[in-house]
C-alpha cells in the first residue's frame, strides 16, 4: 500500500486511489520499425531489484498520468514527475545518484 504524491494536484495519494501503468519511458515503435525494436517495445520490460521508473494514473483523483522513480526493494520513492517527458528529469536523477552512488540512468537502460 504505497503512498505516492501526484505531481499535478499535490495529493499524497493512497495506492487505492491510483492505477498502475507499468514501466515508464518506453519508446513507441510503429510501422517501419524492425521486428526486434517492435518486440522490445511490446514485450521487453525491466524488472529491476532496485531503481525503477513506473507509470501511475491518479485514477480516483485528477485523472492524470504521472511517473514515479522508486526502489523496488526499499520502497523508497525518489520522486514523482509529470509524464510529459521521454526521460527522467535532472533533479530526479540527482536524487537517485545521491542515494545510490554508482547508479546511472544510462547504465540502467
Amino acid at each position, binding site marked *: 500500500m504505497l503512498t505516492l504524491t501526484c505531481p499535478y494536484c499535490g495529493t499524497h495519494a493512497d495506492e487505492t486511489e491510483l492505477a498502475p501503468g507499468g514501466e515508464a519511458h518506453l519508446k513507441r515503435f510503429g510501422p517501419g520499425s524492425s*521486428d526486434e525494436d517492435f518486440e522490445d517495445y511490446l514485450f521487453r520490460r525491466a524488472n529491476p531489484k532496485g531503481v525503477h521508473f513506473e507509470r501511475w494514473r491518479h485514477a480516483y483523483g485528477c485523472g492524470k498520468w504521472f511517473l514515479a522513480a522508486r526502489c523496488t526493494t526499499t520502497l*523508497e520513492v525518489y520522486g514523482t514527475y509529470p509524464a510529459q517527458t521521454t526521460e527522467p528529469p535532472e533533479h530526479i536523477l540527482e536524487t537517485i545518484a545521491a542515494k545510490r552512488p554508482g547508479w546511472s540512468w544510462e547504465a540502467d537502460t
Partner: protein
Amino acid sequence: MSTRLATGGRFIDRSQPRAFSFNGKRLRGYAGDTLASALLANDQMLVGRSFKYHRPRGVVAAGAEEPNGLVNLGKGQHFEPNQRVTTTELFDGLEAESQNHWPSLEFDVGAVNARLSRFLPAGFYYKMFIHPRSFWKHIYEPFIRASAGLGKAPKSRDADTYEHFHAHVDVLVIGGGISGLAAALAAGRAGVRVLLIEQTAHWGGRAPVDDPQINGLGAEEWINSTLQALEEMPNVQIRTRMMGAGVYDHGSVLCYEQLTDHIGPKDGPRHRLWQVRADRVITATGAIERPLSFAGNDVPGVMLAAALRDFVVNFGVSVGDRTVVVTNNDDAYRTAIVLKTAGLDVPCIVDARPAPTGELVAEARALGIRVEAGKGIAKVKGGKRVTAVALCAQAGEGAVLEEIPCDAVAMSGGWSPVVHLWSHCGGKLTWDEAGAMFRPDPDRPPTGADGEGFVLAAGTANGFLATSEALADAYAAGQIAAGIKKGKGPSALAPAEEPMAPVWMMPQGAAISLREKMWLDYQNDVKVSDVQLAAREGYESVEHTKRYTTLGMATDQGKLSNINGLAILSDSLGRPIPSVGTTTFRPPYTPISMGAIAGAARDGLFQPIRKTPMHGWHEANGAEFEPVGQWRRPYAFRRNGESTEAAVHREVKNTRDAVGLLDASTLGKLIVKGPDAGKFLDMLYTNMMSTLPVGKCRYGLMCSENGFLSDDGVVARIDEDTWLCHTTTGGADRIHAWMEDWLQCEWWNWKVYVANVTEQYAQVAVVGPKARMLLEKLGGGMDLSKEALPFMQWADGRIGDFDARVYRISFSGELSYEVAVPAGQGLAFWEALLAAGEEFGVMPYGTEALHIMRAEKGFIMIGDETDGTIIPQDLGLSWAISKKKDDYLGKRAHQRPHMTDPNRWKLVGLETTDGSVIPDGAYAVSEGVNDNGQRNTQGRVTSTYMSPTLGRGIAMGLILNGPDRMGELVEFPKIDGTSVTAKIVSPVFYDPEGEKQNG
C-alpha cells in the same frame, strides 16, 4: 484443583457476577474475567483437544499467544469458531463450546490417533496419501475433511455489522504496556499527532503484575498518571481493545478494534478495521514467554510461568494447589514468590542452570522454597491433568532422581520479543546470544517512502527485557519517531536478574522415548522428534520444515513454538540458530474477523451497481437483469407466465415485425474535441475518422498496440473539431483512460480534450419497421424521413417535449433510431415512447434479443467474437482498416508474421444441418489427434443462438480458411459424445442487402 482465591484479582469485580456456559454447563465468573480465568476458577482445566492426536489440552498462556484454549463462541447468527479463551472477555450469557472432539471433550474417540502416533510422524499426509492417485478423491480426501479442522464453520449469516475507518497520524504506537505509554508520552510531548493502541482492555501490560518502581511510583500509579497526561494532550488519541494487525508499505497499518465483543451481541458495529497511515510506527508489543521442551509438557496444568502468576494477580485464580516451577532464568522465580505469598504450595523450583544466585533466587529461598539447580524435568505424570513431575539431571539422559507430586507446572524457557509487526514489512532480526532470542536489528528496519526506517521497535519488543532499559528505549523511540532530540525518560527500579541459560531440550540428552512426548506446537501436535525427523529426511530450510511438520501453521501461527522448533532444527542440522533463520512473519498478528475485512461491503453495498435512468421501470416491468461490468442491463422482459426464452423470442419477433425499445444508455459516450482531434482519432481507430463529414456516423474499430481488437462503436462528427465516440458498455471507462493515456503520455503536444459524457444521456434505441411512425407520432418537428436523416447520419432536434440527438444507426438490421436525451429526462422519454407506441405494438427488449438480432445480421460483439487474441482481419473487417494511413495503434502489429498468416481462423456463419443450436464454445474437429491424443481442431464457435426469425440454430465461428470454404460441412462434438454438423455460410443470415436498416 484450579480455583478462585479468596482475595485478589486486579481486573475482576467480585460484586458483579457473570453467568456463562461451557459445553452446556452453567458456570459463574466475574466482570473483568476472561473466559480462561473464569474456566480455571471453575476448575475447568481441560479446554480442548489437539488437532492431530486429539490430546487433552489445557490453557497454557494468559494472552494472545494461547495455542490450546480455542472455542466455538456464541450461537446461530452470532456463532464464531476458534476464539481464544485467554482474550475473550466474559459477559453475561456467554456461550462457549470446546472444539475438535467427538462425542465429548472428556471422552473423545479421535484420541485413538494418539495411540497411533508412531504411525503419524512428520510428513505423514504427504507420504501416505500420495498413492494410489485414484484414492485421493474418493477415499483419502473425504476422510481427512471429516476429521480435519478445529472449529466449525458458521452456518448462519452473520447478524453483526462491521466498518472501516481511515486515520492519518505522525506516530502510531502499537502496544499499551509501559513501553508503549512511555513512547506515546515522548511523542505526545513533542506535539506531533499520536495514536496509541492496546489490544487488551487494560493499560500497562504485565508491569502491574511484577510491579517495578517507575519514577518512584508503583507501576500502576505511574501507568495511571501517564494515562492522565496523555488524555490531556489534544494531539494524542488512546484506544483499548485495538490490535495492530499488520504493518504494510509506506506506513500503512491495519488495526483491528473490537467494539462489542466484551459485552456480547449489540447494535452497532462489532469490529472496526482501521486503515492507519503513520509517518512512524512504534511497535511496543512486548515479549512472549517460551515453553520448555520436556516430556509431557502438554499435559493440562503445565502452563507458562508468567501466565500462572497473571491468573493469580489479575484474576485471583490459582491454577493448582501445588505448583512446581521449572525454569532456565530468574523471571520464573517471581511466579514461585507470587504463589507462595498467596498461600499456595511451591514444592520445588527446578532450575536448569547449575548455580543460580540472583536477587529473586535469594528471595525465593528466603521464603523457604526448595531450589533444585542443574535439574530438569524428565517427564510430567498425568493424563487430563498433572499429577506429578519426575526430576532428572539437566545434563543427563533423563534418569529419574525423584518424583514430586503436584497439580500444576509453571515453565519458563526465557522470553521472545514480539517482533511480528517489526517484521511484516521487511524489518530484519538479529540473534541475541545472551538472551537466546531474535530481536529487531535497528540497522535493518523496514524502509518507507523517504528511504528511512519507519518502524521502531521499543522496550521489551526491542529486546530490552529489563524494565529500566525497556522504558529508556521506548521513551527514546517516541522522541526519535517525533523527530526530536533524545531527552531523559522515566527510570525504573526492579530486582537485578542473572543471565538465562538457553535450554532447548530437557534433559539435554533426552532419549527418543522422551523426545516423542516433548511438544513444540501444541495446537498442531508437532513434537521435538518430528522436527528432528524432518532434518534427517533432508529438510534444511526452516520454511520447508514448517510446511512438512506443520510447526507454527496453526491459528496461533507458532507464537510459542517457533523459536523452540527452530533451535531443535538448528541443533539437528549442526548449524547456528541465526544461520537457520526464522519463518516469515505475516499479518495479521492474531486472526481477525472476515466481517471486519468486508466492512460495510455486504448485501446492497457488496459492490456498486450502476443503474440507468430507466432502471426502476425495468425492475417494475419484469426485467431479468444481467451484469455488464457494474451495470445491470435487462436481459429480457418476461410477461405473465412466460419463460425467458419465450420472452426473448417474442421481443425479437416484435422488433422485426413492429417496433421495439432498447435501453442503450450504458453505451460509452466520449466527446473528443480540439484542433488535433481528427488526427488523434485516426491514430486510435483503424478507420479514417478525420474525413468523416459533420453530421455523419461511421462504425469504427480500436486495437491495442498488439493489434488485437479492443473495442468498437459508432463515431459521430459533431462539428469541425468535435467528435462523439460511442464505446461498448464495458469499454467506456477503459477507452476513456486509453485516450487520456495516449494524450498525456505520448502525444502531449496535440491539442485534444476528451470528456466522458456517458452518464449525461439516456439513450433509447427505437428499432423496427414502425420506428419512424412512432417517433413521428411524438411530434416535435424533427424531419426523420429517409431523405432528411438517412442511415448513418445524426441530427439534433425536438422529439415530443424532449431535446434529443438522434442517430440513424442500427445494431439489429432494422430501421433504427438511437435517441439521446438528458439523463434526468430519460425515464419520462421512455414512458412517452411506450405510450405513443402502444398502437404500433411497441415492446421493450433486452440484451439477449439484441444479441440474437445482431448475430442474425452477422455483426460482431466485443467479448464474443473477440477474446484478446483476435485481430479485425480475422473477423472480415478489413474494410474498416484504412489503407491510407501511415500509422494507427495496432498497425505495426498487424504486419507481424503471425498476424498475416493465411491459416488464422476466420469468421464465418454456421448453419446446422439439423436446425439445432451448436453448444456455446464448441470446437470444430479435423482429422487426426494431437500429441495429447486429443482431436485436432479447425475452428470454434463464438456466438450461437436459436434464431426466432429464421426458425433454426445459427452461429458465428472462427474456422480455418473459413471464408474460402463456403458450403463445406464441419463437425462439432458435444459433451454428451454426439456431434452436430454445420455448413459454412456467410455470417449475414438476415437482410444481406441492408434494405431494412437503410429504409
